[in-house]
């Protein structure tokens, strides 16, 4: 029996990410992890909901949030979700080059998002003196949004490590699950952002 997992178009299984036993385990493991992450973010959201009006004479959400920036960040992250779908599409077609290309675009979008977020935080801190210590609202805001930002940063590190490590060797059954689990994680970050822009920003501006 051969243990060569490299792919060629002839033997390409329909779902390379789940073709091996390890792949299937990784796939399930990540999904289950996301189930846990749901609770994690729910707790952060719940805390935020409980404290969002506790501004203790500090800035309130209506004073600081700006719509344009958040909209731009939203578009960046939503688009990056689509580009990672494209990457997976090409993975299933065994088109390594295109996959890498779309993953590269995903990474760039993620970096752009993170840059805007850093800019946003800096803006609040410098222009409004609104920090983690300003009020319970400040603590809850930075913790929730910061946790999400941390997830984006971790996702980017993961993605870049994957792309660099596999740049020369192409797609095979050993690394296909790794790409796929990354894409699931990335979508999940997007899902969290949808709730952040709704619950934190939009509900904070009405």
């Amino acid at each position, binding site marked *: 029996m051969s243990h060569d997992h490299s792919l060629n*178009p*002839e033997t*390409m299984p*329909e779902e390379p990410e*789940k073709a091996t036993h390890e792949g299937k385990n990784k796939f*399930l493991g990540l*999904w*289950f992890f*996301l*189930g*846990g*992450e*749901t*609770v994690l*973010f*729910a*707790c952060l*959201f*719940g*805390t935020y*909901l*409980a*404290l*969002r*009006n506790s501004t203790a004479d500090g800035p309130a959400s209506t004073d600081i949030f700006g*719509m344009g920036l958040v*909209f731009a960040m*939203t*578009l960046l992250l*939503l688009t990056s*979700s*689509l580009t990672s*779908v*494209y990457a997976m*599409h090409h993975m*299933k*077609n065994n088109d390594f080059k295109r996959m890498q290309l779309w993953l590269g675009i995903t990474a760039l979008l993620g970096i752009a998002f993170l840059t805007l977020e850093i800019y946003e935080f800096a803006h609040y801190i410098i222009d409004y003196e609104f920090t983690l210590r300003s009020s319970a609202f400040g603590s809850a805001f930075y913790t929730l949004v910061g946790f999400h930002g941390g997830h984006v940063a971790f996702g980017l590190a993961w993605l870049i490590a994957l792309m660099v490590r596999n740049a020369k060797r192409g797609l095979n059954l050993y690394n296909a699950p790794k790409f796929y689990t990354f894409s*699931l994680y990335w*979508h*999940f970050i*997007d*899902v969290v952002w*949808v*709730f952040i*822009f*709704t*619950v934190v920003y*939009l*509900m904070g*501006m*009405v």
Partner: protein
Amino acid sequence: MTENIDKVNSFQKRKRKEEMKKQLISFALMIGFTVISFSLVATGLMDNMFIIPVLLILAIIQVAFQFYFFMHMKDKDHEMPALMIYGGLWVAILVFIALGVISWW
């Protein structure tokens, strides 16, 4: 033999194209919902009482698209993932109720 595989492959390719079309549509819808949400808030057309539930519903639909299409939860072999996500959501709802109540308690 190769011919056969080719056939299978081209069939799979076509299927994936279809799939991709669906993905694009859901993406367009997601962007659409986002724009609606933002413009609802920006224009202030709606009463605050109504706008929050509307925003939440739009968010939930969008997230369903992400899960079911982008993350393939609609596909077969996703029973366990779906079970765990719904389990997480159930606990999430409980958490929302518990901590949400504090703010008007």
